[in-house]
């Protein structure tokens, strides 16, 4: 099966190892991984700021870059949710509308793709740590992912998952929100990290590096004893 990966802009720039680990897992699952090296961003940042027209130009580029693909897989529910749910609003009553309808059916968040398309949950990963799992808002409410990452983590040897309180509550990232209203965003991170610390977990794991970038930056600044890992990093461990 040929899988075209989308590497979100911030993963491309800040966390390339997450994308490499996703590739590693997809290849182990038997996929032929394709990467169009022209790709950049899905267009979400400007859209969420209200700059729909600027966003639209980048969405057009995304449509072009992923035109001839079978499946598109990305390690970010946030980007995938945006493409699935908002492209059709941006391109309503336009010539790209039909293309968007095709696109949104073939793009998948990484864990969703593994569990629901490939129907594979066990990659012989080993990760001997206590972790807690953070449900990203985009995974929960944009992509309707809840059990998929947990099913995958359940097969990781040595991994103990302890659920935290208020696990479905937003971590407070929210893109530009985190820099426009940094104190509110910081207070939300504080509660998220406190809930995680109460589980005694060493790691917070999630489908979304954007949440983790925020949570991790907050925990590090306060030197709190918890680290963050993308689920692709966990699934690629130990083999």
């Amino acid at each position: 099966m040929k899988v075209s990966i989308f590497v979100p802009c911030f993963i491309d720039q800040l966390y390339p190892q997450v994308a490499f680990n996703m590739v590693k897992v997809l290849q182990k699952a038997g996929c032929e991984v394709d990467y169009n090296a022209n790709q950049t961003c899905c267009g979400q940042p400007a859209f969420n700021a209200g700059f729909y027209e600027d966003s639209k130009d980048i969405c057009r580029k995304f449509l072009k870059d992923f035109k001839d693909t079978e499946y598109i897989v990305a390690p970010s529910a946030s980007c995938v949710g945006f493409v699935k749910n908002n492209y059709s609003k941006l391109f309503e009553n336009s010539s790209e509308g039909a293309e968007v309808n095709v696109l949104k059916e073939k793009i998948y968040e990484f864990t969703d793709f593994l569990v629901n398309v490939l129907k594979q949950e066990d990659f012989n990963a080993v990760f001997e740590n206590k972790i807690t799992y953070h449900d990203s808002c985009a995974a929960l409410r944009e992509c309707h992912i809840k059990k998929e990452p947990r099913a995958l983590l359940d097969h990781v040897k040595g991994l103990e998952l302890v659920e935290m309180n208020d696990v479905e509550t937003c971590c407070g990232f929210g893109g530009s929100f985190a820099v426009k209203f940094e104190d509110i965003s910081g207070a939300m991170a504080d509660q998220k990290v406190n809930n995680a610390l109460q589980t005694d977990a060493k790691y917070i794991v999630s489908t979304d590096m954007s949440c983790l970038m925020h949570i991790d930056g907050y925990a590090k600044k306060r030197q709190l004893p918890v680290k963050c890992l993308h689920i692709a990093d966990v699934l690629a461990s130990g083999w």
Partner: protein
Amino acid sequence: MAKKNDTLEYSKIDSRPGEPAFKARSSVKAKDIEHRRKINFNIGRYNAVVPVGKTQFYDLETARMMAKNKKWEAIEHLDRSLLQFEEELVKRGGEVIWAQDADEALANILEICKAVNCKTVVKSKSMVTEEIHLNAFLGQNGIDSIETDLGEYIQQLDEEPPYHIVTPAMHKSKEDVARLFANKLGTEPNLNPSQLTQIARYKLREKYVQAEVGVTGANFLIAETGSIALTENEGNGRLSAGFPKIHIAIVGIEKVIPKLEDLALFWPLLSTYGTGQFVTAYNSIISGPRQKNSEPDGPERMIVILLDNGRTKMLADAKTREAMFCIRCGSCLNACPIYKNIGGHAYGTTYSGPIGKVITPWLRGMPDYKHLSNSSSLCGNCTEVCPVKINIHELILNNRHEAVVRGESKLSERLAWKMWKVSSNSRALMNAGNGNLKNKVVGSLFKAWNKHHTPLEFAPKTFNQMWKEQHKN
């Protein structure tokens, strides 16, 4: 633009408009751990009972969709449904006043009060009366306006506006209330909640006897029968409406539902999402003043003031119109992680929380309130819990877009997105510079990030560069 009634804001609570004032207030509350504890405790109690209330619905999702459709019907046909309401109410001797803004509503209320030489008004809980600052206005005109809902009475004693649209004193612990009563009423400082309630009841009963005018809001306007529907738990609403000689109901025009039978859906829905109850303890349908030949008691006049105050601006916008479906249950406030951090007063608006972020920029103007739409992480939990399925977080986002379309975004932000667009359109630019250089550029652009986070660390090379190096052939 400052309107006359803006001078009537509560002096104790800072509610200055604009982003800097909002940021200052919200930053203080976000750090207030005791505030966080009280709110989490009180919302925790709400969260525990709502699932119980929901069990009364055989098919909750269908109920919510039906409610949304009913509100859609009423709002889409507002031109007819409001006239129908007026026609039916007038048939039974009621009066209807159409008020375009707060000043018009206040002037009408004052005229009604003066005609009977009114000294005391008893009122039940109503957010619309908060919106027009009725208590302060009447006070300035020598009329005592007494809140009779316990939570609102507490807030009035403390000279604070309601903190929450359903639970006005949610931010106060029972100890806080006992202290407040001791300070303001001279009671013993350690009274328990039922003792405090008895004292409030005793004080308020006197006021009912004195009051010449009773003021209420309405949870619903029933177009078919020309009735208002009141939902409450203390019986103070029906006393305020029924005991004084004159009953004034002030109601936003969006409160219409088409038919009487629709209450069978809306009353349980509002109760469950508002407080977790199946239905509230008191539910009244009031369809006019005392009918002279058939009713022994009741007010001699019943006047319904239909208030616009900016609502027709929302109505005119095809997307935002959906916000008028709101039944003011408060569930989006309780579900909002930002509300739980900054509390109800930090917003500086009558309607706080997610729905307040949607409607306030329309009611009070984008320039002073568009920042509220930006102060959201767009987590979507508000949309998930809305009983009438308003796409709240999408409307918040739509407000951001509206501000951009109206040219109200900052120049610096417009430039930043143009730069973003240029670089996101070019793979070469995305790969330009090394990690260290990017750290410096981004670090200087996002100073606010470094307040609560360690600085972002760009990888020495992008994924794109590394992939290309690995796949040269």
